[in-house]
């Protein structure tokens, strides 16, 4: 499921392909529709105090800004791709058909010796092995480009690839619905796989407006300890879902999530942020008169590269905790 989600295209403003993959999966649990922003929405339609579950379905990428006279593509970022990983990276251009490309590197005889800076995005180009004339038949300005990084298992339950931000969040919500099983059809649950998070949460703003929910849980990825991260990053891969505490979140929800995790022995860690979270949670919390909002994060290394790493156990603990929380709202437990 995660592989299919991550393989699909779906950059901000152009999420169609991944939305159709996810719609097929979400559609097994509840009626779905796509709203004006391109958000994929599912709703059980059950009356009562509703909870909204959100994960963003867009992934970072580029857009073509020009095809130069040699047939190379010039690009702009759509979302915050890390410029230092681009030299010689492999990409897919989503034109009339998918086209393979390699990001150029600075030839050694033209490089400043001891150059310590990566090239700016407007200095790189994508080599697609075509002449300008041939390229123009298939590719247009505005077409999206994604970094190649199909998922690969590492040791243990670690998995590595592109778009785990935030397709792993999408997967955790789908898994939560699977855990709820038959109970789901009588629960007031709304799901949003939101568009355009990477370019400023536009999807969450619109989708939040449309959602008459009292509570919300957003799922995104956050930083795991890795070489070079400073001591403020304490989350570890495989040690459980990250329960967020922040001024922009609902403190009681955060506490309750922690209590339930302890009660049900679900692996969790805590992430504390000083103002906003930088995720859809911030916008959802303010939407339509406000919603009580919590944030669960999946710890991740190498964010915004084609080699993001997460631990499958952390998707599972995120799903388990959401399911347990939803059941606790009804006064039911999972027992």
């Amino acid at each position, binding site marked *: 499921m995660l592989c299919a989600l991550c393989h699909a295209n779906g950059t901000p403003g152009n999420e169609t392909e991944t939305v159709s993959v996810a719609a097929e999966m979400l559609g097994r649990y509840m009626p779905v529709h796509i709203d004006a922003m391109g958000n994929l929405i599912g709703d059980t339609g059950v009356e009562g105090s509703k909870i909204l579950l959100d994960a963003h379905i867009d992934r970072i990428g580029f857009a073509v800004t020009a095809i*130069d006279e*040699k047939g*190379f593509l*010039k690009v702009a970022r759509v979302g*915050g791709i*890390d*410029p*230092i*990983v681009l*030299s*010689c*990276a*492999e990409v897919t251009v989503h034109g009339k058909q998918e*086209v*393979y*490309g*390699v990001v*150029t*590197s*600075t*030839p*050694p*005889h*033209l490089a400043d010796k001891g*150059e*310590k*800076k*990566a*090239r*700016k995005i407007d*200095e790189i*180009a994508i*080599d*697609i*092995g*075509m002449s300008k004339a*041939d390229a123009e038949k298939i590719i247009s300005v505005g077409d999206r480009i994604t970094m190649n990084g199909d998922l*690969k298992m*590492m*040791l*243990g339950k670690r998995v*590595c690839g592109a778009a785990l931000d935030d397709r792993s969040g999408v997967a955790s919500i789908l898994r939560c619905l699977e855990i709820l099983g038959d109970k789901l059809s009588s629960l007031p649950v709304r799901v949003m796989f939101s568009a355009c998070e990477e370019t400023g949460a536009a999807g969450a703003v619109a989708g939040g407006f449309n959602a008459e929910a009292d509570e919300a849980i957003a799922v995104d990825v956050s*930083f795991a300890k*890795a*070489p*070079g*991260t*400073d001591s403020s*990053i304490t989350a570890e*891969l*495989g040690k459980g879902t990250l329960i967020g505490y922040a001024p922009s979140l609902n403190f009681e929800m955060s506490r309750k999530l922690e209590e339930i995790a302890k009660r049900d022995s679900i692996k969790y860690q805590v992430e504390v942020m000083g103002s906003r979270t*930088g995720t859809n949670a911030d916008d959802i919390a303010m939407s339509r008169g406000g919603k009580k909002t919590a944030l669960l994060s999946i710890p991740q*290394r*190498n*964010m*915004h*590269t*084609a*080699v993001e*790493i997460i631990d499958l156990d952390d998707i599972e603990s995120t799903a388990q905790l959401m399911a347990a929380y939803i059941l606790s709202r009804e006064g039911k437990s999972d027992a």
Partner: protein
Amino acid sequence: MLELIKELSLIGGPSGREENVRKFIISKLPANAEYSVDAMGNLLVFVKGKKSAKNKVMLAAHMDEVGMIVTYITDDGLLKFSNVGGIETAALFGKRVKVGESELSGVIGVVPIHLRRGDDELKMPEKDTLCIDVGADKKEEIDGIVSLGDKVVFESDCVEFGSLLKGKALDDRAGCAVMLDMIIGGVEYDTWFAFTVQEEVGCRGAVAAAYNINPDYAVVIETTTAADISGVSGEKQVCKLGEGAVIPFMDGASVYNLDLYKLAGRLAEEKGFKMQTKTVIAGGNDARAISNSMGGVKTLTVSFATRYLHSASCVISKDDIAQMSLAVKYISEEFANA
């Protein structure tokens, strides 16, 4: 030959660990090819031609690729490494690698862009901060799976796109493929083929290979940087994909005999193969080691124009493959009788 290039490209064989490449090549040698392996690991092959040659001609291509070597395993199960051969640090960030004989999957990670606070997002971390992450948490998890000194190579499939081919190690498996294809197809004159080791760490194997074979003439079959990419124009492009075999008159390591260089030009015209030269003096290869060996060897280099050399994504033109074969064939035949 495209298939041979792809198969060779996928084998993991950085300098000093060329054994799997050598085994593969040996497995493809026809019955009439006599071979030996010298003390450094060079594979020396002799093929009798239809005619015997006036001069002893040696063709050479190196089996090793640029890669990495595991220097230390941290308590957290991360691998510190050293480059083997010249890889630009920029080409390392966020790349997938394979570690050891078992080809364990790993990545060279980066501190996320969001956390590189205060620093300009373009500033590249120092190379010695890089580690290979195989997904372990503790050193103990990888005991017996990864060891100090293990070889590491980029993980990179071969991809054909447009008229081009991308793969790792095209430097110099593409050269090895040209030689192997020639051995399999048969040669006009008796010819020696040296599949050398350790080129990327100082053209070392070629020195011993040249001594062991002791040729009169040599043709080094290589890859060389093409900068015919976006934003580069004129002579700074060095050479171009699809414009044929690159035969330099001079590079960063060798000054080729001008008469030999001009001979190559005449042969290109007469025999109808595409030839170009390098318009920037840069780079170096086994030619220096060979031409300066013993009493001197008359040497030319014939190369694939290649983009993004020494990275996981070397790119050559499929159209150049045939031109390279022709160029090497005719030059070596000319040398046999010169």
